[in-house]
């Protein structure tokens, strides 16, 4: 399995407080890596550093390297917008553009990235993205309805379709199911399972069961540091570090 992303000595700050301390981690290609850890451990900050989203907040700073296929995304002359096209992100709460139709929501990413396909091509991309997000059958007859007229679970899959439309290589998901009910969660998890054939996926989740269900690898973070990274089954049955064991068994102080 090739490495898609290599993180070396990654540090991040919010003003004077350091949120990440020397993270070193390799994310294998076409696999799902889950990031777990208690609130405030830096998991969201970590994945936001992976597509240069951390720096968009005023007063923040990043140091270290994040190599995408060997190229440092923090290197000189690298365009963060282009990086965000290759490394897409799905957020905690479904956030379709409320004034746009389902169709336009999916097409929006293309326009923002300056991609101007022909009408037929655009239709093909929208359909393909909705199919990949396992939403097509549910919305194909209402593509021009508002993006917020569908259920929360459907909205989240719409956001995934919007992310996939720009053909990213890596998909980052920041607690994508925390606002969804168990059935919608199951659908997103099944979708993650299918998407891993094509994409490298990094998912931040508060649910350890979810991490165990969907991921191939799991990273446990605590207080801004990476405590343990390993094959998911191993990490959830016999982890190496005591802190990991305490956390996954619910013995955290």
């Amino acid at each position: 399995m090739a490495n898609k992303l290599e993180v070396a000595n990654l540090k991040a700050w919010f003003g004077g407080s350091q949120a990440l301390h020397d993270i070193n981690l390799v994310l294998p290609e076409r696999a799902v890596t889950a990031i777990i850890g208690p609130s405030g451990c830096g998991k969201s900050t970590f994945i936001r550093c992976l597509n240069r989203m951390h720096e968009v907040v005023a007063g923040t700073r990043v140091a270290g390297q994040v190599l995408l296929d060997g190229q440092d995304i923090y290197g000189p002359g690298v365009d963060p917008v282009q990086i965000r096209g290759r490394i897409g992100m799905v957020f905690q709460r479904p956030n379709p553009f409320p004034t746009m139709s389902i169709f336009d929501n999916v097409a929006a990413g293309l326009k923002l990235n300056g991609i101007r396909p022909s009408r037929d091509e655009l239709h093909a991309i929208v359909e393909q993205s909705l199919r990949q997000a396992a939403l097509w059958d549910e919305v194909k007859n209402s593509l021009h309805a508002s993006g917020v007229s569908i259920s929360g679970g459907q909205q989240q899959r719409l956001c995934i379709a919007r992310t996939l439309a720009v053909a990213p290589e890596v998909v980052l998901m920041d607690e994508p199911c925390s606002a969804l009910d168990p059935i919608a969660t199951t659908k997103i998890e099944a979708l993650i399972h299918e998407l891993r054939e094509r994409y490298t996926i990094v998912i931040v989740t508060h649910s350890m069961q979810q991490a165990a269900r969907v991921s191939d690898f799991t990273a446990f973070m605590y207080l801004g540091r990476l405590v343990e990274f390993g094959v998911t089954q191993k990490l959830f049955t016999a982890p190496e570090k005591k802190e990991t064991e305490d956390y996954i068994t619910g013995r955290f102080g």
Partner: protein
Amino acid sequence: MTVHTDRQYEEELVDLRQRILTMGGLVEKQIANAVQALVTRDRTLAEATIGKDHEVNALDVAIDDLCLRLLALRQPAGRDLRFITTALKITTDLERIGDRAVSISERAIELGTEPPLKPYIDIPRMAEISLTMLRQSLDAFVREDAELALAVCRSDDEVDTLNGQIFRELLSYMIEDPKAITRAMRVLFVSKYLERIADHATNIGEMVVFMAKGKSIRHLDTIPPEV
């Protein structure tokens, strides 16, 4: 050991550990009584031992229920997962040991109706070693002590050797006097039961190593010196 944030969960795990110990203690007593009934030709004790087996079975069912409930409702991970799955497997071995106490008692009753073949010397020794193995395997379980568990696994050879010795001795009795065959066969069965008990204790020892260290040592040709 760090305590669970969820106190009820912690109490359920303590309860599970306690029940395994109760079952282990009961099974140990059952074997000791069965062997005593055999050696002292005590039919009453043999029958009482057989009559008590249902208590072992009831504990087996209750522990299984508790394990299933913990798995379903707590979705355990890490050491809790290893502890609960180990408990689930240990009860099966303990229940089988309980059945061996019944078998030994049955042979004791049968042998008690016939004149003694010979004084029992190796059988009580074998029983003592097997019971020590059982006790230590359960101590290792409670203390999560992989070293002690490995020591239990190593003792198994001693019991196997004694079993072979008893077999050869009884064989010579049978060759000498065909009228002794029925009795000799019954004693031989008892020897085999005790040998099986040591095997069950070894199974428990192997599972405890997995529980404590997260590494399986089962079905290896040789027992590793350490884990």
